[in-house]
Every structure is written in structure tokens, then in C-alpha cells.
């Protein structure tokens, strides 16, 4: 899986609207690895300040969303859950739109910050609606309240879309479709740090996920403090995915598709499932983003379009398989 990830990353370094020779790319990379970061040609400029950060960013977002998918599916014990079901998309979209409308884009980190706050506020709201502040959290009510809150937010988003002017409409639409081109190097670093720290925190508890998917009674009797563990996963995972969504916009289907596919290949042990899903999610989004960059080069498609185009047929396939 690590190998696949590396090959895909390398492959997508080569692809782009400006053709750069394989030989050149490897020479530039070798040069950078020896610690020489001076940029001497236009090719290097494209490679290191455009493509590489973007590939890294796509990887981070893909990994974050996939991890989110694995974990939400496990703690909600529902194979259809993903980071967006809990309102992370709706909330951050609304936050971002309000940000764009208020002109936050002229401030550094303005829109992503509002999107992030929107996502967190929504997760909190979903929690409260589900009755999670007192007593145990019933899985279904969390999922239901996520759906309800999301539906309400979509209405609010549509309302805003219908009253804004053209310029704003364009940037909102791009945000809603998912866009990996805007993140700055600093933002990418923040996201990378959150992902790494989050992954370490989550991985130490991975064994507990195996027990929780067996049912809460079972997990409880086998010695897992279920409520605390679920809240821990919910908080850490929400943070990771909220960071990713607030920087990249809404990229659907990654979080829901990758975990299923990985379970088919590697089984359900979360100690294996978490790392392979992160790696595969990263690879998948890098491929999707490369396709988005290349097909209509030099114009770009929003990457969310590509993932959704892959995702919908995949879902039909999954449902067909289930009904047999």
C-alpha cells in the first residue's frame, strides 16, 4: 500500500498541463533530496511550488476523509456513515459561504477559519440535537440528527446562493464542489500536522474500534469504556476532517468509498484498516486530482466532480452486491 502510494504520487508529479520530462523530474527530485532547494528553471518552479504542494495536500485531504469514514462507520456502526453525515460538510459550507459573503476572503485564513468553526459548531449542534449531552449516545439518533441538520443547512446554502451576485456565486460554487488548488503552503503544513497528530491519537485506540463494531454491549462487557471511547473518537475525528474540509471544500464519496474497499481487501481489523485506508484515500484523491488537472488542461475540473463520478457507480455496485 505504501508502494502504491509512492508510485501514484510520483506518477502525478509527471502529469500536468505543462509537460515535464521524467528525466528532468527525477533529476530535480534528486537535487532537492540532497538539500539543494534553489530553483533554477521554470520547470522546477512548477514542480516544487505548484505540483508538489498540491499533491501533498490532496494526499492529506484524502487520508483525512478516509480516516473519518472508517471511524464514523465504526462508532456509529453504520456502513453508510461518513464525515459528512455528521454535518461536517453542511456546517463548514455554511461557514465558508458566510465568510465569502462577509468578505472574509480578503483576510488571511478568513474563509477556511470560518468553515472550520462552522464544522465544529455543527458537530456540537448535532450532538445536542441527538441528546448527547446527557446519558449515552444512541447511534441512530446521532445519524438522524446529522441528516436533519444537514438538510437544514442545505436549505440555508441554497438561500444564500439565490441572493448573491455572480462573482461570489462562482467562488461559492467552486468551494462547494471541492477544490484543492487554493491551499497555501502554510495551510498545508497545518493540515499535515493535524492529520499526523490525529492519526497517532486514533491509532493507539484502534483495537477498541474492533470491539465497538461488535455492539456496544459486547464492547462494554469485554472491558471498553464505550461512551468515553466514542466521544474521544468523535472529537479527534471531527477535528481532522473539519480541517480537511475547511481547506478543500466538499469532496464527496472519498470518506464512504475508501473504507469499504479496504475492508473488502484487508478485512475489518482497525489496526490495519486505519493506516491502509489513510494511504489508499490519499492515493485515490491524488489520482482524482491529477485527472481533474489534466483532462481539460489547462482548465481544471473541481476534484469533487471526479470523486462523485467514481462514487455514484461504486455505490450502485455495492448495493447490487449486498442484495445478492
Amino acid at each position, binding site marked *: 500500500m505504501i508502494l502504491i502510494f509512492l508510485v501514484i504520487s510520483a506518477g502525478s508529479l509527471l502529469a500536468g498541463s505543462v509537460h515535464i520530462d521524467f528525466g528532468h523530474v527525477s533529476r530535480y527530485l534528486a537535487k532537492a533530496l540532497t538539500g539543494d532547494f534553489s530553483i533554477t528553471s521554470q520547470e522546477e518552479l512548477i514542480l516544487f511550488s505548484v505540483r508538489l504542494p498540491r499533491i501533498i495536500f490532496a494526499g492529506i485531504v484524502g487520508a483525512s476523509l478516509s480516516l473519518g469514514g472508517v471511524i464514523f*462507520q*465504526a462508532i456509529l*456502526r*453504520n*456502513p453508510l456513515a461518513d464525515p459528512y453525515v455528521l454535518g461536517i460538510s453542511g456546517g463548514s459550507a455554511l461557514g465558508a459561504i458566510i465568510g465569502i459573503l462577509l468578505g472574509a476572503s480578503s483576510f488571511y485564513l478568513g474563509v477556511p477559519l470560518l468553515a472550520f468553526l462552522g464544522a465544529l459548531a455543527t458537530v456540537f449542534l448535532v450532538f445536542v440535537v441527538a441528546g448527547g449531552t446527557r446519558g449515552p449516545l444512541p447511534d441512530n439518533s446521532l445519524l438522524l440528527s446529522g441528516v436533519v441538520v444537514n438538510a437544514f443547512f442545505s436549505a440555508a446554502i441554497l438561500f444564500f446562493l439565490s441572493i448573491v451576485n455572480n462573482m461570489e456565486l462562482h467562488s461559492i460554487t467552486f468551494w462547494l464542489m471541492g477544490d484543492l488548488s487554493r491551499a497555501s503552503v502554510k495551510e498545508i503544513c497545518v493540515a499535515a500536522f493535524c492529520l499526523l497528530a490525529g492519526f497517532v491519537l486514533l491509532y*493507539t*485506540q484502534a*483495537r*477498541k474500534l*474492533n*470491539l465497538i*463494531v*461488535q*455492539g456496544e*454491549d*459486547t464492547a*462494554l*462487557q*469485554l*472491558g*471498553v*469504556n464505550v461512551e468515553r471511547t466514542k466521544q474521544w473518537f468523535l472529537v479527534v475525528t471531527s477535528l481532522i476532517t473539519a480541517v480537511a474540509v475547511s481547506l478543500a471544500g466538499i469532496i464527496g464519496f472519498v470518506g464512504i468509498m475508501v473504507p469499504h474497499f479496504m*475492508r473488502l481487501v484487508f*478485512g*475489518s*481489523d482497525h*489496526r490495519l484498516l486505519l493506516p491502509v485506508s489513510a494511504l489508499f484515500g490519499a492515493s485515490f484523491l491524488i489520482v482524482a486530482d491529477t485527472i481533474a488537472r489534466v483532462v481539460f488542461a489547462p482548465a481544471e475540473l473541481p476534484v469533487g466532480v471526479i470523486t462523485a463520478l467514481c462514487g455514484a457507480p461504486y455505490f450502485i455496485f455495492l448495493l447490487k452486491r449486498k442484495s445478492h
Partner: protein
Amino acid sequence: MSIISAENINFSYATKPVMENVSLTIDKAQIVAIIGPNGSGKTTLLKIINGTLFPDAGQMLIDGKETSRWSRKDIAQKVAIVPQETAVIFPFYAEEIVLMGRFPHLNNYRFEDKKDYRIVHEAMEKTDTIAFAARRFDELSAGERQRVLIARALAQEPKVLLLDESTVFLDLKHQAQFLALLRQLNTAQQLTVIFVTHDINLAAQHADRIILLYSGKIYAIGKPAEVITAANIKEVYDVDSLIDQNPQNGLPRMTLLT
């Protein structure tokens, strides 16, 4: 010395009381059956004993300490339960399921080692499940699944084993095998066994003591011959029965009269 003792336990789901003033003590290495009609509180009592539910009033003690004061892991090292059925959403292999029984003995930062695998394989051999260790749990038959869950509980190496109708899906051979295994663990390792069943004869034949629950109260408790009487069965289950004795061991035997 009593390993389990309940003192005046009350419990209700929301507003519906399901357990009223239940007191009992169970000694180490006893085999105890809990019987009673549907909804009489059998499963609830098991959950209170293993500390996944806490009594609203009264005290539930394991080894003299209240269940609410044990950590989940410590209690899981002492008490294991074989549930009626588990819903499986994601595919796990039978061996992985049994391996989960080792959870209370492991910390978060360690993978299972050789010793854990040895315990798991022993448990699977004892329950005749080793043959499908590498098969998916959700593809097994109900009886096979039940044996895997029994193996998981054994892998927990508990001092007290709780069984919630754990023999219903087993065929005769595996039932006999399992009952013999329980006897053996009971004498060799001083395992305390508490089992819930609807099979009056199973309870009468294999339990040292029987607890008869009736709408959340203990209706009768004692040796099989004291509890299994035509009068008790009539009062609690509202059926007529003939109680005679098993010619081999003199234990009570029930036949339904219809």
C-alpha cells in the same frame, strides 16, 4: 466465600421497573441457573452482575467491591458473558472474534503475543471451532457462531462465566460437549457459572442452585428439588406440569402436561 452478592437491588428501564428488591449471593465454583418467564428480568440480572448496568438502588458486589467502582477492564478480566446473539455489520474472521476476548488483558500499545494466541487456540479447540478459525463470522451458522462466542468468553479467562441461553442453537453433540466442558472448568479451575435458560430440565440437571425469577423478583431460590415443583411452575409459568425424578441421579424432571 461469595464471589457475587446482590443486596436489595432495584432497577428500571426509563420508568418501567424490571428488578425489585433482589438479593442473592453466589459462592465461588457454584453452577447457578436463572429461570423465569419472558420479561421476568433474567438478562437484565446478568447485565447487572457483569456491571454493564448499574442498579438504581441497592448494591451489586463482585469480590466484595461494588461493580460501579471497578474499571471496565478489571471487571472484564473476572466476568465474561456469552450473549444470545451479536449482530455483525462488518466482516470479521472467527479467530479475530475470539482474539477480542484477550482485550481486557492487553494494554493499548501492544499487539497480541504468542501466549494470547495459544489461549485463543485452546479456547477454540475446546469449543470445536478451530476448524473454521479462518472463516468469516457472519457466514457461520447460528450454532457455530454461538460456539465462537463461547470461545471468546473462555479466552477472557474469567472467574465467572455468564451464559444467556447459550445452548439454544447447539446441536445435541455440541450441547453435551459444552456442558461437559463447563463441568470440567468448574471443578478444575473453580469457574463460577451462571446460566439463563428456558430449559427447566437443563437447569435441574446441571445447576447446583436455581433462581426462579418472576416479574423482577426472586420467586424461589435453592436446590433444584426445592425450586422445581409443580406448584412453582404453575404459579410462575401458568402451565400444568408433571415433576418426577430422573432415575439415574434423582434430580427433578419436568414434563409439560397439555
